[in-house]
């Protein structure tokens, strides 16, 4: 196909294969291709076909645990550089975010939590009373206080899903769609990969298959515990400006933002129903109601809007909820970026850091605590 960023079948040999074309895999491939390496992305369906295409695009620094603040800052920086330096339009915006508290207990919790984050290097402003109303007149009067973090941002799953694969192609990377990886084997100091579009041999292997990464690691005798959440997300009809910050909640599960087209995304990680086997994922009626109730309690004007769509998607999470990426244990030349709570936020940093490992460069931020070896279970631990 002329102009296509995809190739029909994988080459027989390549230097590096990236398995899984979501934000983690495509970022990894981008940095490797830009460094002149021969990289092939093997994707089961189409890029962004899973969590990376279904998520809310919230890049909130202040909701992150202290342990991951540096990693998050790095990733925000990469998200910003995609557009600013690499001419890749990912729809990045940085309006800053408000994390709200609605009860006395929540206010106390927010103080304590944000103070701890300040120690970890987070910069924020404490907002209440008129200052808060002036900044966000659309907030409910039930919001008593909020922290404002200028660095909270968003990017567009829609735009990045077209732009990042195109950038990988432009940098010389190859992407094979509909090439589910069905087997992995160590062979002659490298890896032999079976896909539904043919087999290939590579020196270096990167597994970035979201929640399916555990199954792929198992093919190389590594047992990594990975969990999936079934996150729900809803979108309203387009409306004139209602809110202009990224909203999160200290005491309730909530994320809110209004997109450039006027629609408002309502989510935060409310759980839908479903099973991983068979790709069954549905919205849950009661929890959707609770999600909307929480949203309206913070931004009352939302009650007037109509709901256009609610959906559910998988998010892979490690048992300790910290990102898990780095060398695949016991497998030279293999790497994995399997799970991160808020993986859309962290994807670009994970990609950069894995590329740095492969390119033998010093890491842009320390990554020791994210080493997947910490999760090893069973016979190979």
């Amino acid at each position: 196909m002329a102009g296509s960023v995809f190739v029909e079948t994988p080459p027989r040999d390549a230097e590096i294969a990236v398995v899984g074309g979501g934000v983690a895999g495509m970022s990894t491939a981008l940095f490797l291709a830009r460094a002149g390496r021969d990289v092939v992305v093997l994707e089961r369906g189409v890029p962004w076909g899973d969590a990376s295409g279904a998520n809310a695009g919230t890049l909130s620094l202040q909701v992150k645990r202290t342990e991951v603040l540096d990693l998050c800052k790095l990733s925000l920086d990469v998200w910003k550089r995609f557009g600013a330096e690499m001419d890749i339009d990912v729809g990045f915006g940085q309006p800053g975010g408000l994390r709200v508290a609605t009860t006395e207990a929540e206010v106390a919790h927010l103080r304590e939590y944000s103070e701890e984050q300040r120690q970890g290097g987070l910069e924020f402003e404490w907002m209440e009373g008129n200052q808060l109303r002036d900044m966000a007149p659309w907030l409910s009067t039930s919001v008593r206080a909020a922290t404002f973090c200028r660095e909270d941002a968003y990017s567009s799953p829609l735009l990045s899903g077209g732009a990042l694969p195109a950038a990988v192609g432009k940098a010389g990377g190859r992407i094979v769609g509909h090439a589910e990886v069905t087997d992995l084997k160590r062979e002659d100091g490298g890896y032999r990969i079976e896909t539904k579009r043919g087999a290939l041999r590579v020196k270096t292997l990167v597994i970035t298959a979201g929640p399916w990464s555990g199954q792929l690691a198992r093919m190389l005798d590594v047992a990594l515990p990975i969990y999936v959440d079934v996150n729900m997300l809803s979108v309203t009809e387009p409306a004139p400006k209602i809110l202009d910050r990224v909203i999160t909640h200290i005491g309730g599960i909530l994320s809110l933002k209004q997109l450039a087209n006027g629609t408002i995304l309502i989510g935060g990680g409310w759980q839908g129903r479903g099973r991983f086997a068979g790709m069954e994922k549905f919205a849950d009626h009661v929890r959707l109601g609770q999600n909307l109730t929480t949203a309206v309690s913070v931004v009352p004007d939302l009650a007037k809007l109509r709901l256009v769509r609610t959906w559910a998607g998988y998010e892979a999470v490690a048992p300790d909820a910290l990102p898990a990426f780095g060398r695949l244990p016991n497998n030279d030349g293999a790497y994995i970026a399997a799970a991160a709570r808020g993986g859309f936020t962290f994807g670009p940093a994970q990609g950069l850091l894995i590329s740095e490992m492969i390119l033998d460069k010093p890491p842009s931020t320390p990554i020791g605590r994210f080493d997947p070896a910490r999760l090893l279970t069973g016979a190979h631990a």
Partner: protein
Amino acid sequence: MRETDLLVVGAGAAGLSAASEAAKHGLAVTVLDDNLLPGGQYFRRLPTGYHHTHETVFDKERQRANALYATTGQKGITYLNDAVVWESPENGVLAFARGADSGRIRAKLTIIASGAHDRPAPFPGWTLPGVVTAGGLQNLLKGQRVIPGRRAIVAGNGPLVLLVGATLARAGAELREVVEAAPILKRLAGSIADLIAMPKIVRQAVDYRLAIMKSGARLRTGWTVIEARGADELEEVVLAPIDATGKVDRSRARAVKADLLVVGFGLMPSIELVRLLDCKLEWKPLRGGWVPVRGADFETSRPGVLAVGDGAGIGGVEMALREGKLAGVIAAERLGKLSRDQAANLKAPIQAEIAKVETFRRGLERLYAMPPAFLDLLTPETIVCRCEDVTAGELRARQDAGFGSTAALKGTTRTTMGRCQGRNCLRTLSALIAQASGQPIEQVTMPRPRLPARLVTIGDLLQEELPPIEMPKDPHLPRGERVS
């Protein structure tokens, strides 16, 4: 939660007939419909307090219409207007939005009579102000007695074209052209034997044609609209004949001045609810495309859920009335109000009438069958997705870049994701994918069904009483299943 024996979704010809019949035999029936007034599409009526002076074609139907409206007050029937059924939280339960009265309803049996909507037919200029759909125009005429223009052209394919032409002529519009894409006059001889199974409709069609001729408008068959032109609103319409191979012959194109273009290329069943209920679908192009698979007794693949009327496959009002009535008998039998024999006696004459309508439909379908040539009309600038302003050129560029699947095109362009929930663009998107991949359209993957079935106001959804929110101890920690 409300409870009912029989729940009917849709207060159109099919839904009201079903409700009336079922209630007659002693069932407690609840009818939910998202309009303010009962009647659905065909029997749409003027709001109370409105008066009009012009007779319309439709006024002849007053008797049947009044009988149908009256069923909403019939003993045993609870009719809830302005109620949008938006999802099924559990088996046998549907949730609806209705202001402060929003909630859920549990039923022993459910009949979906959701009707149809206009099939999108994009061509250059189809989104200009002044271009409206046939269904939309009928709604304006019936519901408001408004003609949104003066010099009118009607173009499309299917029986609504003649109907709309006649309606406009009688309502006093300056009708210029009525343009039917299928060569129906040439085909009439081959269809008439089936068509006369419904002599009343044939007479009606003759009347429509006379009304069009009398108005001085020109009736073209085997012609189609290929473009609508105008700076800010419609100024002229370009028409062209279709040759024997189904291709548009641009060399004979003609531009006609007009400020109203009514376009009707047929209807599509409203299947969002049956999809949410996970009912199996099948592709029946002559019935409007995707329709729920139905067993005997109209049951879908989801036990306890029946589908009737246009929502189960375009059959027109005569079919909808009779399928509804039959479904009412079926419901009464299944819920123990009629013995088998009683039910059989009631069913036989309705089934005989349905057989006649089926014969008529076969004739009609042969008469109007048309190869789908409209993709040839798309220029790169033609809008495919009106909600998100996505053009055919953008979609084709994405396809060329390798984003060829429904999911990839949706994900990278937002086509089908706007406020029409795909009603106005999914069919075109699927056709573009089918064209590029060489697959038949029915093999093109449909997007997953998503709630809500129709747009609902968030405030309404908060009326429902919910269990208290349970917060996870640490929202960062995983809450789902372990998968490796």
